[in-house]
């Protein structure tokens, strides 16, 4: 979009006039006019045309109206790719908006015209179009001096710069919501804080919390009241039941029925009891008749029994007498047998004893005879044995005297061998002397001639050498001491061994051992003989000989032959045994028979006494018969009486009411009556209790209170729910605002900086501008590696950065195919000559594809800017 002409009608100082700025070309166009010319009015009119709907009646639109009144109007011609369009608006009075196409046809009016403008500036005015205007007010330079006037002017200048920067900020805000976003977010936070904590819980002092607390408190109160109200209701129901029950109990008919039932039960019981008495009496009569009959029968039976018993007793007595006599006769007979058997036993015993004596004598005589021969034999054997024993003892003494044994001989032989070994050793070590006598001479040593064999000398010796004298040979102490000591020890050992053998030499010892062996053989031989003669030993043989000699001292000749006596003795002893057995049997029979006889006698006496007693008991027989007859005669009458009594009893029993049932019925009737009375009392007590409880609860108006509290609780809960919903909505709004701002910031910063950086480089080579993420304002300028906060920069630098930021936005729009004019109204008031030249360069850089309108009152300073010069035509409207 490019602006080609601007037309103002009846706006501010152009009251009743038409002011036209036309023939605006591409690139930079400069309107350089003095103060109070109305340059800012053009700016405001253009802004109103694009951004103030024609029906808007605001401070801003009203500010367009001149003091003389009337409706302000403005129109612009813009060039679009498809031609020139005219936009016209009238505000406040008969407001209208119109869009005219290149052919002069009105294509949109009023709201449609507003929508057309919106579409022109981007979908929903997506871009911060207002950024492209820089308002008038930057004409003053910061004055020097400290006076009030200078200070006031300086403050105004600072305000202007702030305005310049804030206008930039405002445009940024237009993108991100900026200050309004902050305000709205603060309001949302404040609304949230009024209700909820940071964690979105009900805030202690907030309405939500109050509603929640109130609902909870009411719920508690309701929970406390509800059971009591329920109890009251239950009490009322129960009381109605109790009252109905009492009414039933108090009903006269019911009570009369109770009384009748009781009386009836009582009468029935009395009747049953009387009947029962009659039954008992009949039972007694029946029992008496029965007993009487039984007694009569028993009497008759007893009399009969007595007679029978007496007869039987007498018969038994007689039988017992006979039995006793028979037993006595048998006992006597058996006693005789016993005596005979005893005598026979004694005779047999005597015969057997005689034979045994005779046999004994015969046997002794026979034994004595045999003992004499044996005594002689044993005497001979004893003599021989004693001789052998004597010989053995002697040989043993001799053997003992020899002292040698194979072991001692072996020891001596070993000692001898050691002596010989040591001697040989001494000889080998000794000086040897070998005599070789001349013919006829003989050397001797100790008188013994020396052979021609070498003679070892182990100790000093003297050798006689005939014709020479004596030669003493001494082997010397050093060579012989050890061997000599050993040989001496061996010699001593040999001497001890030989002494143990009882010999002086070893051959002697060997001889002694041979002799000892011979003696041992003889001893053994004699001992064998002795063992044969006296196998049990000499002493036993000696005792046997003595016993034999004693036995042999009996009569010399036997009287009878013992063998001949043995058979008669056996017969006699068998007869004696048989006689003894028979005697014992007979004796036992006799004793038993005697006992039987005594018992039979006793039984007889007992039966006799019993018979006498029975007879006494029965009395006289005839009298007894009379009594028995009388007794039997009375029995039939008694039986009839008993039958009659039984019939009476049976009849009564058959018609008897059940006393237990009658008694139970009476008890039940009494119990029912008592229970009714007790129930009446209990119900009256319960009723009193219920009345008290109901009265107390009813006095509290508990149902009304409960209904009241239930309603209040529901209302409080509903209120709490509304607050909760409001909190949810506020939270959602907060997040929506935050998301939108974050999104806007993200989409805004990157492209703006990309456009801004080349422009900053024109002014400050190698400088970079940083925009604060939070404030979205240019915040830091980095030059030569030095970062400087924007607010410490000079007013001129800040002003230039603000304008460059706008230009960057303009380029951003142009690059997105939506070019919009940049309008600078008395900007760059603080820029020095060098900087303003650089700014002009920047403007020209932007103006290559961007229309830039510069309104200025600084005609000289801006002469160097170049560009197209514009003129305003003013004429009556």
């Amino acid at each position, binding site marked *: 979009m490019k602006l080609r002409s601007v037309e103002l009608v009846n706006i501010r100082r152009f009251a009743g006039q038409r002011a036209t700025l036309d023939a605006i070309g591409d690139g930079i166009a400069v309107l350089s006019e003095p103060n109070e010319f109305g340059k800012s009015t053009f700016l405001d009119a253009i802004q109103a045309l694009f*951004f103030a709907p024609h029906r808007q009646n605001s401070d801003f639109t009203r500010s367009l109206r001149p003091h003389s009144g009337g409706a302000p109007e403005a129109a612009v011609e813009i060039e679009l790719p498809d031609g020139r369009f005219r936009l016209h608006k009238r505000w406040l009075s008969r407001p209208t908006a119109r869009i005219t196409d290149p052919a002069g046809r009105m294509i949109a009016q009023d709201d449609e015209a507003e929508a057309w403008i*919106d579409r022109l500036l*981007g979908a*929903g*005015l*997506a*871009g*911060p179009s207002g950024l492209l205007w820089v308002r008038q007010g930057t004409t003053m330079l910061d004055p020097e001096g400290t006076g009030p006037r200078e200070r006031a002017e300086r403050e105004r200048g600072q305000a202007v710069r702030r305005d310049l920067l804030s206008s930039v900020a405002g445009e940024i805000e*237009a*993108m*991100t*919501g*900026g200050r*309004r*976003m902050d*305000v*709205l977010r603060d*309001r*949302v936070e404040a*609304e949230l804080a009024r209700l909820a904590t940071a964690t979105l819980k009900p805030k202690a002092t907030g309405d939500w919390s109050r509603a929640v607390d109130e609902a909870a408190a009411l719920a508690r109160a309701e929970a406390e009241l509800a059971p009591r109200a329920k109890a*009251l*209701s239950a009490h*009322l*129901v129960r*009381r*109605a039941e109790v*009252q109905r029950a009492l009414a039933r109990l108090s009903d006269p008919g019911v009570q009369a029925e109770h009384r009748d039932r009781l009386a009836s039960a009582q009468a029935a019981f009395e009747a049953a009891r009387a009947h029962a008495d009659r039954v008992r009496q009949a039972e007694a009569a029946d029992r008496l008749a029965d007993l009487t009959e039984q007694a009569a029968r028993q009497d008759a039976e007893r009399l009969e029994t007595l007679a029978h018993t007496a007869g039987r007793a007498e018969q038994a007595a007689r039988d017992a007498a006979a039995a006793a006599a028979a037993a006595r006769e048998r006992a006597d007979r058996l006693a005789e047998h016993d005596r005979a058997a005893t005598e026979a036993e004694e005779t047999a015993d005597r015969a057997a004893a005689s034979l045994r004596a005779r046999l004994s004598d015969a046997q002794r005589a026979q034994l004595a005879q045999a003992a004499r021969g044996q005594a002689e034999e044993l005497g001979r054997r004893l003599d021989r044995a004693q001789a052998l024993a004597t010989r053995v003892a002697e040989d043993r003494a001799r053997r003992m005297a020899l002292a040698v044994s194979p072991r001692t001989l072996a020891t001596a032989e070993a000692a001898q061998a050691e002596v010989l070994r040591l001697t040989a050793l001494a000889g080998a070590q000794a000086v040897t002397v070998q005599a070789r006598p001349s013919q006829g001479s003989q050397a001797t040593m100790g008188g013994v001639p020396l052979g021609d064999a070498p003679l070892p000398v182990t100790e000093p010796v003297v050798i006689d050498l005939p014709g020479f004298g004596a030669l003493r040979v001494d082997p010397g102490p050093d060579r012989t001491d050890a061997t000599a000591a050993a040989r001496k020890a061996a010699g001593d050992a040999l001497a001890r061994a030989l002494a143990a053998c009882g010999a002086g030499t070893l051959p002697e010892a060997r001889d002694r051992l041979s002799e000892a062996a011979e003696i041992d053989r003889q001893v053994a031989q004699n001992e064998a003989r002795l063992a044969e003669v006296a196998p049990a030993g000499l002493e036993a043989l000696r005792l046997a000989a003595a016993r034999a000699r004693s036995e042999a001292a009996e009569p010399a000749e036997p009287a009878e032959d013992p063998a001949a006596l043995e058979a008669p003795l056996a017969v006699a002893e068998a007869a004696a045994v048989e006689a003894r057995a028979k005697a014992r049997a007979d004796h036992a029979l006799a004793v038993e028979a005697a006992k039987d006889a005594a018992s039979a006698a006793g039984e007889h006496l007992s039966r006799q006494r019993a018979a006498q007693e029975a007879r006494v008991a029965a009395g006289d027989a005839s009298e007894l018969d009379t009594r028995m007859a009388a007794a039997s005669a009375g029995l039939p009458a008694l039986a009839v009486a008993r039958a009659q009594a039984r019939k009476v009893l049976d009849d009564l029993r058959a018609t008897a009411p059940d006393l237990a049932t009658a008694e139970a019925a009476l008890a039940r009737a009494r119990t029912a009556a008592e229970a009714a009375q007790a129930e009446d009392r209990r119900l009256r007590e319960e009723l009193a209790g219920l009345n008290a409880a*109901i*009265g107390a*609860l*009813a*006095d*509290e*108006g*508990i*149902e*009304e*209170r409960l*209904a*009241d*509290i*239930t*309603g*209040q609780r*529901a*209302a409080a809960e*509903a209120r709490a729910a509304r607050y909760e*919903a*409001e909190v*949810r*909505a*506020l939270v*959602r*709004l907060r997040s*929506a*605002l935050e*998301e*939108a*701002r974050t999104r*806007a910031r993200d989409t805004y910063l990157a492209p703006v900086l990309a456009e801004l950086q080349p422009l900053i480089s024109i002014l400050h080579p190698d400088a970079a501008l940083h925009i604060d993420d939070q404030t979205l304002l240019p915040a830091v300028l980095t030059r030569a590696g030095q970062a400087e906060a924007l607010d410490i920069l000079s007013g001129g630098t800040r002003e230039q950065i603000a304008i460059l930021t706008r230009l960057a936005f303009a380029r951003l729009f142009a690059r997105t195919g939506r070019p919009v004019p940049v309008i600078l109204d008395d900007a760059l008031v603080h820029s020095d000559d060098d900087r303003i030249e650089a700014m002009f360069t920047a403007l020209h850089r932007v103006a290559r594809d961007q229309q830039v309108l510069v309104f200025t009152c600084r005609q000289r300073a801006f002469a160097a800017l170049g560009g197209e010069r514009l003129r305003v035509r003013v004429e009556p409207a």
Partner: protein
Amino acid sequence: MTLRFLHTSDLHLGRAFGAFPEGIRNRLREARHGTIARLAAAARAGGARVVLLAGDTFDAETPAPDTLRQALRAMADEADTDWLLIPGNHDSLAATELWRRVAADGPANLRVLATPEPLDLGGSWLLPAPCTARRPGRDLTEAMDAPTPAGAPRIGLGHGAVTDFAAEGGTPGIIPPDRASRSGLDYLALGDWHGQIQVGPATWYSGTPEADSFKHVSPAGALLVGLAGPGAVAQVVPVATGRLVWQACRIDLLPDDDAVARLRAVLPAERPRDHLVRLSATGRTTLAERAALAAAIVRAAPDFGWFEADLSALSVAAMPDDLDLIDRGGALRQAAERLMAEAQDAAQPADARDTAAAALSILFALAQEDPA
């Protein structure tokens, strides 16, 4: 001679109204108490000496002592009026303590008809059918078949729902709608339904004399009944007795509607303090209209005894102008558009849509406090 009586029911004396703020709650209770005097005045004005109370005179089985005593005292104060009363389902005969106290403390001009026995009203016969329990489960008005002297007008007095009265959506009642003709009644005075309605030629519900809900449209009142004689058609004249008016208002909006004007049109103009208003808005409107409506409600609400507005069924139409009033561009506009889309996104759960709509409304309202 024409018998005149006032037919009323459902006074519900002692009703708590706990869900209402304290101020209006007390007024509601007081208004109910005041019905006794107003009914007596209406009877007096209509030339009636008898007031038939067709049940539910008391709201609870055990009303608070002051509720009961003040009601009895108020009846006693109307000495020229006879109060004939049957227990209803709220104050049935099971409420023994209530009726014991009434019997003990009640004035001479009050008579509780606790048994279904015909009562001579001076030539006319009243056939009462007192409620035996909260849910008796049988047609108590069968007792109205009881014989009365021939030629005497017969008036039934009962409490409960008529068979086809609540047939649609409710539990059917058990009083046959033709009870009056069945039992030869010249007039059947019924209670239980709080709205005034004629069920048959001679069968009426008087409704409550003091409204207690937004359910019924008809003004609260009683029925002045005149019976010229047996067989004569009863002359029934509704008499307004209500003190406080319960008014449910509904406005259905389209985006072009002026919501505030529509609100003004539906709100009662006179005696707003004596009105309880429940406003429900439905349809669609713009954010601006919705905000304007909400602001108008906030302004109007204090005029009324009680005011409740439910705008939850009023959806917001997507109008760019509305969003322009939040911002014509930038992040605020984006946030508003996001919330608008979310509020209208059928794929979102209803809760989320409602929350987004509420958030958008708040954003709109806050944005208007700080316009662009």
